[in-house]
């Protein structure tokens, strides 16, 4: 069954889009990532114009994040104070990111920068997560055998010497507010350029950089993604006219259902297992995009609309 998308100005198969939303939504609920890093490339691959893919995906991430965060909220796994500071940074970052996106588009290099960002960040994040989670899987096995002893919550480094310290009760942390604020800005910029929620960077950064416990990381990440992607949805709708509400509704119809199933599944899996799985997916996307950059393209030429932008 075909449906015409009014903003993308093309027709797509309804069930294909529903299935895509469902599959990516499932991962969103399972890992606490927005799913944008999978969805945006897939939409572009289907022939949706990149600008519309990015704008529409922002709206869809709002829906799947709201849906996902409620499940975590009920279990008390959202650190609101931390989430709000991250959001404040995210707002600043997404405004800057949209300006950068516009400039890159006028230079004709936005596709390259997007692909490079994906390869670099997915590679670093995926690689670190994979190594670390495999190590901790091995460790927890050994600890179970020997009985194990109480260890420190996290290591203390120069990061803990920064000023403006704030106590985050939920996260059992006492750290400088500059850290989550800066992280919010950085992820906000990247989210706007890459057309993602930024969860795949935010989640590991919260665990390894801020030292937050894994249990609150997913809920808090989803919490801040809602506000940052709502902001970028608004920016894309008003500045670029690239939010396709019909496409967004189809994606989120599949997405919200998938996210619920994913959130239920995540309770059953162990933190380390989740991280190994997410790391494997992140690395797979990274390798695919990296190969595309290096291998000789079948078509050397691309068409971009002239005149505007």
């Amino acid at each position: 069954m075909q449906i015409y998308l009014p903003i993308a100005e093309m027709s797509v198969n309804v069930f294909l889009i529903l299935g895509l939303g469902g599959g990516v939504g499932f991962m969103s609920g399972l890992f606490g990532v927005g799913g944008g890093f999978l969805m945006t490339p897939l939409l572009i691959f289907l022939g949706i114009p990149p600008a519309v893919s990015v704008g529409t995906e922002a709206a869809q991430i709002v829906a799947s994040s709201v849906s996902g965060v409620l499940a975590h909220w009920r279990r008390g796994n959202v650190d609101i104070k931390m989430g709000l500071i991250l959001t404040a940074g995210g707002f600043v970052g997404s405004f800057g990111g949209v300006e950068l996106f516009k400039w890159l588009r006028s230079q004709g290099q936005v596709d390259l920068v997007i692909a490079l960002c994906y390869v670099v960040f997915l590679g670093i994040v995926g690689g670190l997560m994979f190594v670390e989670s495999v190590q901790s899987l091995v460790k927890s096995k050994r600890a179970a055998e020997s009985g194990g002893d109480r260890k420190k919550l996290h290591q203390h480094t120069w990061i803990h010497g920064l000023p403006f310290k704030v106590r985050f009760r939920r996260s059992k942390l006492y750290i400088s507010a500059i850290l989550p604020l800066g992280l919010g800005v950085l992820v906000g910029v990247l989210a706007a350029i890459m057309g993602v929620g930024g969860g795949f960077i935010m989640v590991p950064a919260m665990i390894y950089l801020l030292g937050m416990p894994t249990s609150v990381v997913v809920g808090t990440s989803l919490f801040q993604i809602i506000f940052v992607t709502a902001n970028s949805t608004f920016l894309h709708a008003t500045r670029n006219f690239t939010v396709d509400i019909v496409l967004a509704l189809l994606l989120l119809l599949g997405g919200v259902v998938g996210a619920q199933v994913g959130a239920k599944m995540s309770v059953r899996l162990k933190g380390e297992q989740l991280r190994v799985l997410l790391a494997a997916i992140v690395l797979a996307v990274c390798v695919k995009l990296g190969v595309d950059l290096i291998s000789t393209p079948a078509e050397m030429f691309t068409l971009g609309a002239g005149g505007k932008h």
Partner: protein
Amino acid sequence: MRMLVVLFLAVAAVIPAAARAADPLVADLSKHLVAITTGFAGTDVLLFGAVDGEGEVVVVVRGPSKPEIVRRKDRQAGIWINSGSAQVEAAPSFYRVASTRPLAEIAPQAVLDRHQIGLDHLDLSIETHDSGADTATYRDALVRLKQKKGLYGEKVERIGFMSHRLFRTELHFPANVPVGTYLVEVYLMQDGDVVSAQTTPLVISKIGIGADVFDFAHQQAAAYGLIAIALAAAAGWLAAVAFKK
């Protein structure tokens, strides 16, 4: 569809007599408005007409012209980067040709050039900013990319003649057809030159909910953005509540 057939037969009966008196070429479309609705997945428009006397018929469909940028990738430091570009001042957004015989057999190059009949005869003003490829390469790339999108015809399509007087052809418009006012040009060729021509406008426009959404998104962008966010948040919340148990 039956109405079309009746219409076609009626025109077939009337036109030869009328055409002899006034014009050696008469043609019309089965519809002058293509409405892009929510279920739009491409459409066919029937072009039919009659000629008086000998000759070949050529039909050219042109969409509104728009500027285009074509970019060329080149390998730099191991990765493929957009390295050169060309600006096309005005390229038809849609272009298709149909003919009763191959174009080369109907008219000489100069005539085809003058009327811009056929992809090779399109007058495209291209300004290249690239030392690695020339204008001709960019021209080929533009045509190839447009063909891949189904907006330029892959080949000259056939027009069928009935009893040497009547002709008809189906003009296909794919789902991604750009909106605007199209021109359907019908030429009657004799001895390698145009003896008669007729231009019929065809409007392709968005109609219904899709059109309303498009207009709203452009005219009330802020409200549209807020509604999109509210809809998304509501859908997410609804799903979470529905799946609570």
